């Protein structure tokens, strides 16, 4: 059932695009950590003011240079590592919090449930960019500040889905029997509920990765990001030299777009593949 040929076209194309990006990311990590620097002291793109705003392929630099005279390819690659790092850290944290809260609201009643429900709804009706802006301006600009801001705005969506899924699973007869033989609360959650709801949650995670990358870049664009290599921050400096060096905006935008297309294709395809109601499913 899980063999490659069974997947629909969207998943195949999506996975291929993501594969290319992963190879790029790993290649750059290898190049910067092993060849150019040493472990723990990564090689960072070097500045040379005399080389600023080179055109692509000028002087052997594939994408040219940015306004500080750094090789654009190296800068974008560092941004790729940063983006992927943020996206996975944020999504996995959201998943952990969302599943726990969702399960609690499905299983418990009374004070805990109404408290968690109110909290989830509050964050839902609050415009998420304003929450993120407020948190980033309080915590200052760092990797963990950024992750925190994005997790705070991201987990309620996971909680909502996890709750629905948990309610569905808790009604199934094998879960009933697990409860009937006296399985402990924690063991029921870890051994029965988690494996049952994980596929849906993981699809949601893949669908959400693109959104996290966009939110991270948006904050970076507004000057509230966690790193100068954030694609958003790069775009905001590239935008100021749009007349002189349009290749900056174009290269950064298209790199980001490729990654997001790959993620969206993968997410949509996987959802169709696992969703029994979808008409697009082919055996």
């Amino acid at each position, binding site marked *: 059932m899980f063999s490659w040929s069974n997947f629909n076209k969207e998943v195949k194309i999506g996975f291929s695009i993501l594969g290319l990006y992963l190879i790029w990311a790993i290649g750059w990590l290898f190049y910067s950590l092993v060849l150019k620097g040493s472990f723990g002291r990564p090689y960072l793109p070097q500045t040379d003011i005399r080389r600023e705003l080179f055109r692509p392929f000028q002087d052997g630099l594939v994408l040219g240079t940015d306004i500080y005279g750094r090789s654009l390819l190296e800068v974008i690659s560092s941004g790729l590592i940063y983006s992927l790092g943020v996206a996975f850290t944020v999504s996995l944290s959201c998943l952990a919090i969302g599943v726990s809260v969702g399960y609690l609201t499905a299983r418990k009643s009374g004070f805990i449930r109404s408290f968690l429900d109110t909290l989830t709804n509050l964050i839902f009706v609050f*415009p998420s960019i*304003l929450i993120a802006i*407020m948190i980033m301006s*309080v915590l200052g600009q760092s990797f963990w500040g950024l992750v925190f801001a994005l997790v705070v705005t991201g987990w309620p969506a996971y909680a909502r889905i996890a709750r629905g899924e948990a309610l569905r699973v808790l009604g199934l007869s094998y879960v009933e029997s697990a409860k009937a033989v006296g399985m402990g609360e924690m063991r029921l959650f870890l051994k029965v509920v988690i494996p049952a709801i994980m596929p849906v949650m993981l699809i949601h995670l893949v669908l959400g990765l693109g959104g996290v990358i966009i939110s991270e870049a948006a904050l970076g664009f507004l000057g509230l990001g966690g790193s100068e290599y954030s694609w958003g921050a790069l775009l905001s400096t590239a*935008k100021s030299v749009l007349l002189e060096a349009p290749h900056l905006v174009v290269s950064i*935008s298209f790199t980001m777009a490729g990654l*997001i297309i790959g993620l969206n294709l993968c997410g949509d395809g996987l959802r169709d593949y696992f969703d029994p109601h979808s008409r697009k499913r082919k055996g």
Partner: protein
Amino acid sequence: MELLIRKIIYFIFTLFMATAAIFFVVRLSPGDPVERILGPDATDIEIESYRSQLGLDQSAFHQFIDYLTGLVTGNMGESLFSNEEVVSLMAQHMPPTIFLALTSVFLAMVIGSCVGVWAATHKSGWSDNIIRIVTLVSLAFPIFSLAPILVLIFAIRLQWFPVSEWESAAHTVLPIMTLVIPLSSIIARVARNKFLEECNAPWVTVLYAKGLNDFSVWLSITKVCLPTILNVVAIQLSVVLAGTMITETIFDIPGVGTLLFDSIQNRDYPVVQAAIIYSTAIYMLIYFIVDYINEVLDPRISTGGQ
């Protein structure tokens, strides 16, 4: 009626919580506005007297009470920098933002529904495939990378539209385009899927059996899809708000977004607060109105849990 009252009470409660959260979070930010206004040469005495003049030397709780009474009476204080009333600052910056948001939501709904219905009625044809690819690609370019590319194409290369001012109708074209493209793509996708789902419903067969032509049947199906489209707009509101604010900063439009980001840079507490609270209030108001309409239209989506 009971539903409406419950909604209103809940709305006021959420708004109060949001106000409190915003007030305390803004106060927690590092950086001192007084030192920023007076500059590095100011003496301690000057700083202290200015601080008490602004009311910043009182306890946070006291400031909060002052602030709440100000909110209710419409007196939001003055900007720490321009000595203008915050309320009048907001009033000046509100119209471009509201104009941008409303126009783009309206256009996106019209364009998105039409494109979605077209794709659904030409399912698996070449136009459907092209629409699918275009929507997929346009969703991969967020506002802040789409805007510079549009500027590059339409303002720099083709020189069709001017940018960086906010005077004539021609200046509004690119910002609106920036906002409409992603939103209409989302709406088109949802409209297409919902339309195809409804196509198989028994009542559609009845319409055909009654002898209606294709076009009138499509029109009825589209009507059924409208609540779903409205719901998508409600879910995307947060994105629209963020998008409008970012678009304003890119195109130098004197709206609430520009005001907010300038004030964040300056640590202009009263203006930051007012901008966030007003945007949140308007956002929540629309959210609750759409939610209420949806619940009235479709009693199945009851949030009460009965």
